[in-house]
């Protein structure tokens, strides 16, 4: 099966400092790939490069037939195919504070992907239900617990229907019981055919739920 995400010779420099030094990585559909490494190893930077939030110096990123190259980031209008295919869950979830849980989830489908409001609401209800937070639909982010907020953030990232999900330190704010629930959720998403790339320093979690672990050190894949 061809890779959902391919990263080739990815180099990122900030001034004279090399943050990524030629990273190569593939993630297949249905696979959970965990990026491991100490703080500053470059895990989050790889996710941000794939999500086209940061420019890189050399290399290439392929998401299906869409490619990102080095240099300035393309205009947002040119990134539409990428935005449809890649979802991202941020470390601090970054839910929109002024919107309820369900409004967070329907925002992108309605305004960025042309889905009708009624349809988006139905889809969001299904997503929130599948993630076990349907009962918190009308809550604002500050009213949610850490686990609830994270699941709403996953629902928001999944709402446009991406086949690749990027997650930055998903277990950092979760207790052990919640980590188990999250792991089960991620497995279910992978079984639906999605490729998951997860940046984490939580080796136990990675061992338990990832199909593959990739170790990063000082911007280089070491294992």
């Amino acid at each position: 099966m061809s890779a959902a995400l391919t990263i080739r010779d990815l180099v990122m420099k900030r001034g004279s400092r090399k943050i990524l030094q030629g990273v190569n990585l593939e993630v297949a559909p249905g696979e959970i790939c965990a990026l491991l490494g100490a703080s500053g190893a470059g895990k989050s930077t790889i996710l941000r490069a794939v999500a086209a939030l940061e420019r890189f110096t050399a290399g290439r990123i392929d998401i299906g037939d869409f490619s990102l190259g080095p240099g300035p980031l393309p205009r947002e209008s040119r990134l539409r195919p990428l935005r449809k295919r890649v979802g991202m869950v941020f470390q601090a979830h970054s839910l929109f504070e002024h919107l309820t849980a369900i409004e967070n989830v329907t925002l992108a489908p309605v305004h960025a992907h042309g889905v009708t409001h009624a349809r988006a609401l139905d889809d969001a209800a299904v997503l929130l239900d599948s993630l076990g937070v349907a009962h918190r639909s009308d809550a604002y982010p500050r009213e949610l617990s850490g686990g609830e907020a994270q699941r709403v953030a996953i629902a928001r990232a999944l709402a446009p229907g991406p086949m690749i999900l990027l997650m930055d330190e998903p277990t950092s704010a979760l207790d052990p019981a919640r980590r188990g629930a999250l792991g089960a959720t991620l497995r279910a998403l992978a079984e639906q055919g999605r490729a998951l790339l997860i940046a984490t320093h939580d080796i136990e979690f990675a061992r338990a739920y990832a199909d593959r672990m990739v170790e990063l050190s000082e911007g280089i894949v070491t294992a």
Partner: protein
Amino acid sequence: MFVLCACTAGPRNESTSHPPLEWGGDAEGGAPFVEADASDASKVRGFDVEVAEMIARGLGRSPQFVQVAWSSIEASAERGDFDIAMSGVEDRPALRARRAVTIPYFEFREVLAVRPADRDRYRKLADLAGRKVATLGSTMAYDLLLDGQKKWGVVPVSYDDDVHPYGDLLAGRVDAVLLDHIIAERSLRRTPGFVIQPEPVAIGYYVGVLAKGNTALRDSVDEILRARMRDGSLEKSFRAWNVWDDSEAKHFERVLSAVPAPATGSIARASSMSTIGSYVPSLLRAAGVTALLSILSMAIAVSIGLGVAAGRIYGGPIMRGLLAAYVEVVRGTPVLLQLFVIYYGLSGVVRLPAFAAAVIGLGLNYAAYESEIYRAALEAVSRAQLEAARTLGLSEAQIFRLVRGPQALRLALAPMTNDFVALIKDSSLVSVITVVELTKQTAIYATNTGSWVIPGILCAAVYLAFSLPLSRFARRLERRWSAA
């Protein structure tokens, strides 16, 4: 109170037994009343100055001029800022009831000035139904216009000075000007182009005003004025200032034979305006003007402020530079100056109605301040929120409209509310371009009654009625949003 002192007759009398006679006047009124001497701004001249000098001499004292704003002259006399006010102060029954007032030393006529083409159309006030007639606020002429408004539908337009009414008459902003004949003739000499109707609308008198309890000095002053009428000193002075005519001679005769001066019905009615009951409707109208003016100005300020803030964040270097210059120029210059420029300065290009100029002036001024609030609030929205929105496929415009803007609004709400309350109060400045709003109406009423106590309390109550609910509303909204 802003007071400037200047000697008019040599060095100040140092004698403790004969302190100088301090007399109040407004040099801004200009010649022939009181004007600063062109060769020495510390000295004043004019026929009121000479009358004051005659009085001082008669009392064996030296005159000492005290500068006071004309609209505050009566209240200052009562406060004891000076012994007597002599600056074209109009005699009115209400004034006599409140203060010690001298005999009338000068008779003036309230005359209509019109454009030459209207000479035959607008001969008297009744001909000006539905037409704008300009005058100085807080004067007998203004009371006459309010009376004319009730009777014939004349539209009074109040000015803070006696120069711009004639300028606006020539510019076509108003259809007539009603003011004292001395002022009308002076303006005609300065800016020809209008005609003065020969038939006066009313007759009035200039008097000296003293504190209510100062009747002893008032009686002495009356004696001196009568003596100067008899010996021709006053006539000589008035002739020298080119304000003497036959009607003045007849007036002197009446005063000296103790015949009461003929009072006009209009003047008597004007005094009845000084009751609280009659003031309340005009207060409410003026409060409505203040409310509408503030709301419209704030709407402009918010819209433009938001555009400027967005332009300074998202725009290119040229746009950012231009918008920054706009903000700095507006914030660095007085709003009064901006109002003058928009209303008078631009009148050659676009002749804005006064209310529109006021709304635009205040709106543009506050837009600069609003833009800084919005810019700070927009920049305070976290980068993570914007990146999350970007990864969802929202365009920059959508991010601004759906994520950044709404979150910034919550941060901006408190300073916005403060600005709106400040704008409501600053709206009082637009009286300089003839808009009669709450504070101006209160000043008119206070001048009519000679006291700021009741007008001040009523006016403050209305301002508080505007600002307190606004602050409460903002606090409630903030609580609701912070709970979210």
